[in-house]
């Protein structure tokens, strides 16, 4: 049934900026401290206090805007969004209404579709209600933490597109260093507008808004649920009611938050305590020049410059610190793919967690990885030895130079190999007997002996060939 319906979705993403101090005062933005310890008269809105705009917030927002191909407004302003809630100490949120800092941006997805970004504006976060022992308390530590809100047009047509967009957005913000986008700490939260329409229809259906989700899994589940719910309503001849919903994680359903969202009148007006935000074209160009290589650009370069597969290149680009590490290790290698395979394979599997990959918590430096790959490239060690050495590097943090002796790296030439094979035959008459008696497997013991004697440097296939030659009746 749902195959006849198309999903239409738009996103409002709140990203907490990782500036050192809050948007309107000098309190720290650090997460996870005792309640109400990162507060001052300004961010708890004591009578008589005035906000002072942290210019770093403007710069971060402009960089985010530039990374998403936005137009930057040279003249912007702050507005008051008035509503009463205990976590909002001034009874208004300082936000931007009709003159956002950035507008008209876009993001191209891997399927070639372009998601239009309507606007990016800056605003302050609210505090947090804490329910404990039957009572409600308010923690204002988060109050005044700077946010950017990134609003797209209703351009998404599938949940996968939403997922890709959010992942890319998150990664882009990390690349810019403007936010750590830790969804579990709430520093990236999404509101999803969602409607359905018969496939081929040009008109939009009535939309609902699912508020405040901070996990990819929940976003996907909530959208799936809401899509089916709306389709079922339409199939049953009923109508979708425009409303604000909350996703109940435990029950796996969306439920109405406020009966009459439309009745909310925020009475926006310009905040008279703050002056016009002026940004010069020159400043914008300076910020543009300060943009780092962005994830898509980096992945493309890794594929082109280092010959990595698109999947591997994209995987590395997901962890900017590991990508930098790889850039350093790859420099000067003829076949950087080897180093990439070490990194993505053994090293990543040892790092295990996302956070370890994000932190690039590798116990040895990039030069050590470079050296290991170079030894393989130069034929000084074979892949088997390289892999076991890499394990030791991961255990000890030491480089290959410390872990491999001179003898390890001595080339095993044909004469030497023949000599070693002879020695192996002499040392193990039982295996020889077995092999000559028709047990092919017995040869493995002799090859193993040769490999042990060379500590893995010998080419096992070559050794097999020499052994077979020597044992030929």
């Amino acid at each position, binding site marked *: 049934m749902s195959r006849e319906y198309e999903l239409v979705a738009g996103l409002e993403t709140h990203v907490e900026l990782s500036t050192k101090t809050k948007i309107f005062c000098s309190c720290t933005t650090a997460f996870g401290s005792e309640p109400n310890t990162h507060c001052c008269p300004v961010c708890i809105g004591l*009578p008589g*206090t*005035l906000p002072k705009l942290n210019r770093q917030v403007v710069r971060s927002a402009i960089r985010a805007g530039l990374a998403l191909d936005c137009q930057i407004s040279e003249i912007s302003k702050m507005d008051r969004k008035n509503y009463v809630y205990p976590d909002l100490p001034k*009874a208004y949120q300082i936000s931007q209404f009709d003159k956002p800092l950035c507008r008209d941006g876009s993001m191209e997805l891997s399927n070639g579709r372009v998601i239009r970004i309507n606007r990016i504006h800056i605003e302050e976060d609210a505090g947090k209600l804490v329910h404990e022992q039957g009572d409600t308390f308010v923690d204002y530590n988060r109050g005044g933490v700077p946010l950017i809100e990134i609003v797209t047009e209703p351009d998404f047509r599938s949940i996968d597109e939403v997922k890709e967009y959010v992942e890319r957005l998150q990664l882009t913000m990390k690349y810019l260093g403007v936010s750590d986008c830790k969804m579990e700490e709430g520093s990236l939260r999404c509101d999803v507008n969602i409607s359905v329409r018969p496939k081929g229809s040009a008109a939009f259906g009535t939309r609902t808004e699912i508020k405040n989700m901070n996990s990819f899994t929940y976003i996907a589940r909530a959208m799936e649920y809401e899509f089916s719910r709306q389709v079922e309503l339409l199939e049953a001849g009923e109508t979708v009611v425009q409303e604000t919903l909350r996703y109940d994680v435990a029950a796996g359903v969306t439920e109405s938050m406020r009966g009459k969202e439309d009745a909310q*009148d925020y009475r926006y*007006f310009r905040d*008279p305590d703050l002056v016009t935000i002026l940004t010069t074209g020159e400043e914008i160009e300076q910020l543009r020049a300060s943009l780092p290589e962005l994830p898509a650009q980096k992945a493309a370069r890794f594929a082109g410059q280092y010959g990595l597969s698109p999947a591997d290149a994209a995987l590395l680009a997901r962890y900017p610190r590991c990508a930098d590490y790889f850039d350093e290790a790859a420099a000067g290698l003829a076949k950087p793919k080897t180093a990439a395979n070490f990194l993505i394979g053994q090293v990543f599997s040892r790092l295990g967690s996302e956070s370890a990959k994000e932190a690039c918590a590798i116990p040895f430096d990039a030069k050590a990885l470079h050296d290991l790959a170079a030894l393989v490239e130069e034929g000084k060690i074979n892949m088997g030895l390289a892999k076991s050495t890499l394990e030791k590097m991961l255990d000890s943090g030491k480089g290959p130079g410390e872990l491999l002796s001179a003898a390890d790296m001595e080339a095993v030439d044909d004469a030497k190999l023949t000599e070693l094979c002879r020695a192996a035959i002499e040392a193990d008459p039982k295996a020889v007997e077995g092999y000559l008696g028709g047990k092919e497997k017995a040869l493995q013991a002799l090859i193993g002996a040769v490999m042990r004697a060379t500590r893995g440097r010998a080419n096992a296939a070559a050794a097999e060939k020499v052994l077979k030659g020597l044992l030929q009746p």
Partner: protein
Amino acid sequence: MGIIKTIQQKLMAGEFSCTELTRAYLDAMERDNGSLNAYVRATPEDALAAAAQVDQKLSVKEALLPLEGVPMTLKDNLCTKGIETTCCSNILKGYVPIYNATVWDILQKQGAVLLGKTNMDEFAMGSSSETSCFGGSLNPHDLSRVAGGSSGGVASAVGGNLAAYGLGSDTGGSIRQPASFCGVTGLKPTYGAVSRFGLVAYASSLDQIGPIAPSAEDCAAVYDVISQYDPMDSTSKGALGPASPHLEDGLRGVRIGVPEEYYDGVRPEVLSALENAMAVYRSLGAEIVPFSLPELKYALPVYYILACAEAASNLGRYDGIRYGYRTEHYNGVHDMVCRTRSEGFGKEVQRRILLGNYVLSSGYYDAYYKKAQGLRGAIVKGFHQAFGKCDIMLAPTVPMTAFPLNFTGADPVETYLTDICTVPVNIAGLPALSTPCGCDQDGLPIGMQLIGNTFCENTILAAAHQYEKAAGQYRRTKWGVSL
């Protein structure tokens, strides 16, 4: 000579110690405040401690800073660390700020002696100080009259010699109107000249802190100290330079503009006092330039729309959650907020919050708030053009003299109309002062208003000072300390 200079000279000459002087003021407050209701809170310990420090300095013949050792007062909407600050509202009773308003920080460093906090209309909303939860301040010239508002307590204290000077705030005339009623001088500086940090907001785009004192010279001395750029207030700019050195600047050739709209509906006695003042100015060599400033007719509605809109938002924070009054019985947070506000705010404040939310609400925003913002621009432009024709402007401060008690309670709109001469400069952000220029047949002071161009406080202070020297109309009342 101004009272500030007089006090400092006497202190340095050893005529009295700062402690003696402060005690004299504190004693006078004990004696007379029951009649005037100027102070809502005395701070004798702080005052005497500050005085002792000044005496310490005097004992080693150290020179005094410009305002050092001079006993003064602050309106109760200026935050004072450790001293209750209520805005004369039940909703803030018991509220003790944990930080100082920038102006009080500056003055404290200057060795000012704070005698106490003075009365005001609740959250500065009113024209008589009678919306105060402590009851209104009375006029030191006639106890059957109000001191005016909203900074009625400061004007009553200064007019009643219970403080040498005080700081008030002026959103639509709250410094100038009570100064006019109480026969003293009050200066509303250019918007941005004095930091608003720590001034409990009424209407942020209109509020400005300024001095009330017996003379223009005193106002200049205070203005010069407090008009500093403050990084804590984004709208702060500080003064272009001190005004005091310009007090003796001659008026020859100065063009004094007289916009006729200011004189519509003004009481005859007020009009004739103003005409006398024009004659004085002519005799001092100034030129009187009459013209029309038609945009003024929009000023009153523009003011009430913008002020109420900003007030509604500024006062949203008084919800009983973090500080101040909280209702006793409630059922859930929403009910608590509603009851707290209904019980904690007075009628006039509630009226302005409702008006403000109304003009901002969707469906009415364009018709009221947006239109008022547009007209604000027109008024700013009108003044700007007018200052091409003149250097300063002369107007009545209030169309009448001090109201009888309870006059303002009856009809709010009629009361709002009395602000007609004071609100335009707040809308335009211009500096203006009120200084006494005579009295009516009941002996009540009449004030004249001098309006300057942006950051030209020096021109109006000099004009007031020159007038005072030529035809001074300040009359000392029987109350308080006599030096």
